[in-house]
């Protein structure tokens, strides 16, 4: 009997704790905003930009530690700079748009 009582009390506490957030009616602040298409695009662009910038840093380290020769280094640096610039350019274009 004590067991049933204890369990009952625990169950009650649990139900209250879990149901409490649902008791009040939904308000505007309860909306979990969805990820918009625009946000997704911009996040992807920022990731691309950061990937290119990160790659440039790694290239520098690899060049300093003689993993890459001068020719390859110059070529890859130019390529990553172009990618970063492209991503930044697209991001700037996006900023003006809604969504």
């Amino acid at each position: 009997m004590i067991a049933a009582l204890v369990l009952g009390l625990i169950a009650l506490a649990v139900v209250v704790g879990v149901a409490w957030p649902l008791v009040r009616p939904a308000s505007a602040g309860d909306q979990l905003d969805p990820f918009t298409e625009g946000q997704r695009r911009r996040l992807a662009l920022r990731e691309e930009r950061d990937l290119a910038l990160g790659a440039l840093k790694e290239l520098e380290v690899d060049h300093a530690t003689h993993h890459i020769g001068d020719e390859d280094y110059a070529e890859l640096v130019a390529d990553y700079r172009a990618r970063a610039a492209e991503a930044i350019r697209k991001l700037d274009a996006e900023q003006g748009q809604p969504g």
Partner: protein
Amino acid sequence: MALIGQGALILALLLAIYAAAGGLFAGLGRDRRFLTSARNALWAILALVVIADAIFLYAIFTHDFSFKVVADTTSRSLPAGYMFTAWWGSQAGSLLLWVTILGAFSLLALRATRRALGELQPWLIMVLALIGAFFLVLLVVPASPFVTQLAPADGLGLNPSLQNPYMAIHPPALYLGYVGLAIPFALAMAAMIAGRTDARWLVASRRWTLASWGFLGIGMLLGSHWAYTEVGWGGFWAWDPVENAALMPWLVATAFLHSVMVQERKGMLKVWNICLISGAFALSIFGTFLTRSGILSSIHAFVSTNIGWYFVFALAAVLGGAFGLILWRLPLLKADQRIESLVSREATFLFNNLLLVGLAFAVLWGVIFPLLTEAVGSVRETVSTPFYVFFVVAFGIPLLFLMGVGPLIAWRRASLKQLRRSFLWPVAAGLIAGGVMIGFGLDSSWPGVAAGSVCAFVTVTILSEFVRGVAARRSIHGENWLVALLHLIGRNRRRYGGYIVHLGVILFVIGAIGSSAYETRAEGLLKPGQSLTVGSNVLTFTGVEKTRGPNFVERGAVLNVTSDGSNLGTLKPAKRSYLREQTTSNEVAIRTTLTGGDLFIILDGIRGDGAVQIKAFYKPVVGLLWIAGFFFVGGVILCVWPDEREARRILRRYAEEPLPGES
């Protein structure tokens, strides 16, 4: 009390189902109230499970044998320390531990994903709650820790082999690993459901995967050490299905840890990574299934209840769910870039992945071979050690080689001229090592020579990385050697932590080869005064000695050990009879030499007239296996150590505009 415990678990199960539904509603309806409610439910589940743990442990410590599980796994004469470890000594108890860890990890994962992954939280809760619900169903129905009976006077006791410090830590370490893999898996599933294709989930899951992988590795190493010292047949890994159960997810997780780096840098291998983490988690579930379902004969004992079918269902759900989600989201998972050159780090990692997954597959094949043959034909067949060793050598040596290639080769494209410069010394070291080994007569084992040469190659590679990095820092920042080294490691924790782990692997490989391919062995029946020679050691038997312990009687063979004339003391391999449990255990005698080799002696039998059957091994450099563990742990800790700068850099990307779901 048992009723409260059982009730708590039933309540926890109902809450888990609710939390999964709440997560679903929160995700679909984008309603924060359901998210908060589901999160509260997770807290409640943890509280209830902890209550159940407390009741269970209380029953163990108060010798309450009306709990059937307590009676089956403990006894009044069990030493206090091992009463705590009896928690996971039973099927029900270990599932209870699993669920406790899962509950705690789930809450930690929620906390860690507050920033920039709030959108995933509803789905994260849903997936984790479903996994928790599965294990709670097991605890409520087939494997309850709270089954009661008429209390017997004393319990059956803990298996003597388990009364050993290593067996105390080994299961929790493995569980932390198995359960830990659920988090990256759940993050991957949540990211796919939410349609998030950026690498944020990868970054968030990285520490979890690393830590879980680390725990699995340490768990296996501890188990090996136990097998070596306590089980005492002379080996440390028997390719038993339960051992393989931990090895398989570990291999796949190793592949994942490497391919993740490719995705983070090049946006490639997205689908492959999700497959890998799903595979790792599925293998973790499969591994749990292996140890509990009784399908295969192995060292660990099984209960042939229908618990196996529950796991089959879970496995199907995990694989089916992952596969379905991948198919649905395939259009979003296109690679941003491609592999441009075979001579690049990406390609090296890719081949590394193929070898690791290939090895995991070979082990899996060996494990389920009895099932396959039984299903196809009428006679069950099994493979044993030679099968596994073949693949470890065939796939492992190329893998080891790649471990040396990876650090020296640049991302995207490496120039051959640079490679020639970089590889000169490592290749020379490898060839010299090979030559030296052959010169010392070690070509009795060709895999041994190959592995040894490759180990030398890799070691020089890793050391050269440290040297180059320090040199570069010195020339750029003008620091002295020590400061440069500390800064180098501190600023590039993952890279150099990884190198330390690789060094650990090298040590392990050398220890493994030395102790198996190059061991010497001798055995014989000795009367008092007679000797046995193994390697350069002479063992002289003087007589049998009898001693008493708290719950056993021990009979040992006293052996005087001399080597090249000098006295090295005595060793006493013994047989112990445990009174309560009515079993006899072998106590091997091990003497570690300064060079890290072991003199390993087993007492196989005692004849009526006092003669003893002795088996002795000399295992060179076997100690490296255990030292490797320290490198392994150190490297993992370094990799996992939070890096403030890196964290800020990553978060900056997500903070540039307010993202939804941040709480």
